[in-house]
């Protein structure tokens, strides 16, 4: 393999909430795909031993004293890698739905300067249709229209949390990431701040163990909350300190 990024300091941040069944395999996979990368697992108030397992799998573990939400957890990881001055930051979900094997494509795009932020999308042309429910598909279609409109660029998979970003984008998000539904907001915020965001078709896996944190009966409320949040992201004050 001859990649431009082999000489760069790469950090992988993985927010995890009760992912004891998935986290060790994920950390090992990342280690195989990008040997030498710093893997930071944020154990966000898990009641199982996610943090302990991640640590013995070789990850650095950050442990907020209680659950601070996925946005808060990711932001904690971003703060750390910004302090430590890593060049490229990768963000994966702790449930293992983002296959590490897809990282190099996104990483190449950022290391080559093709994009400031490369995001894995399930719905980009060329991608395989993922096994998700009809209702979820409608929700994602709605969000992608809304987010495309507000971000001023085509967004096919607004809820994807599979990000590879450069140092500047990581610093920006470490200041501005919203606490509750960070991915959708981030698309609007990044485009407002002038970052070049590109989506790449990637496969994603259904979660292996445990249950997703978004249940069906909350879906409607979820749609309303995220819509409000993303509309606010359009006009919210951006912090650059």
């Amino acid at each position, binding site marked *: 393999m001859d990649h431009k990024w082999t000489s760069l*300091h790469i950090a992988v941040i993985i927010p995890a909430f009760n992912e004891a069944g998935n986290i060790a395999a994920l950390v090992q996979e990342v280690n195989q795909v990008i040997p030498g990368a710093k893997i930071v697992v*944020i154990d966000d108030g898990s009641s199982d031993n996610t943090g302990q397992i991640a640590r013995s799998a070789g990850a*650095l*573990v*950050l*442990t*907020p*004293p*209680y659950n*601070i*939400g996925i946005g*808060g957890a990711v*932001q*904690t990881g971003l*703060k*750390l890698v*910004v*302090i*430590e*001055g890593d060049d490229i930051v990768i963000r994966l979900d702790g449930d293992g739905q983002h296959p590490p094997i897809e990282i190099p494509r996104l990483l190449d795009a950022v290391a080559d300067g093709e994009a400031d932020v490369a995001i894995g999308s399930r719905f980009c042309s060329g991608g395989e249709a993922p096994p998700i429910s009809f209702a979820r598909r409608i929700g994602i279609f709605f969000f992608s229209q809304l987010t495309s409109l507000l971000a001023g660029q085509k967004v096919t998979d607004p809820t994807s949390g599979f990000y590879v970003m450069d140092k500047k984008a990581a*610093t920006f998000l*470490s200041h501005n990431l919203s*606490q509750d539904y960070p991915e959708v907001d981030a698309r609007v915020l990044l485009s407002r701040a002038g970052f070049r965001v590109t989506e790449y078709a990637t496969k994603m896996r259904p979660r292996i163990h445990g249950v997703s944190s978004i249940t069906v009966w909350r879906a409607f409320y979820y749609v309303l909350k995220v819509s409000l949040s993303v509309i606010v992201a359009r006009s919210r004050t951006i912090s650059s300190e």
Partner: protein
Amino acid sequence: MSVNYRFVVFLTSIFLIITVWSLIKRGLFRPAYALLWFFGSFAILLLAIFPEIIPFVARLFGVDYPPSVAFAFGIFILIILLLNQTIYLSTFARLNKELAQNYALLQYRLEKLEGIVKQYHAGDFQNAQLESGSGEDKPIDSGEAATQDISGSLPGDINLSLTQT
């Protein structure tokens, strides 16, 4: 308004004022947050002393049933108080999140530091120095953010105390 009714309203406002005041005195109510409650209580007191205010306002806005002005007034005060509470709640949620984040970051740095100290005690100076980031690795507090957020809260003479051991 009947005299009895005025008296009840008067007592209510006095009761509210005394309650808020004693809560402040006992440290259960921060004065800054109590201000709105005082405004509300004094407004009720005002209505008890000058009940003509209500029919006057009713005429002013063309309200047919003057007592509804009193209700509208009460609801208005409650809305303001609730808005205020939500603002405080959101602020606290944000501060709480930041506190948890800084806790996690500091804990991480402490564990790292403890690792270095252990190596010092074990006489493994070379590794300990390497790990502390003086070599190829960027030192953890080289970034601007670190010097602002975290390093400032740590004693600056950590290195000194290390060499003394």
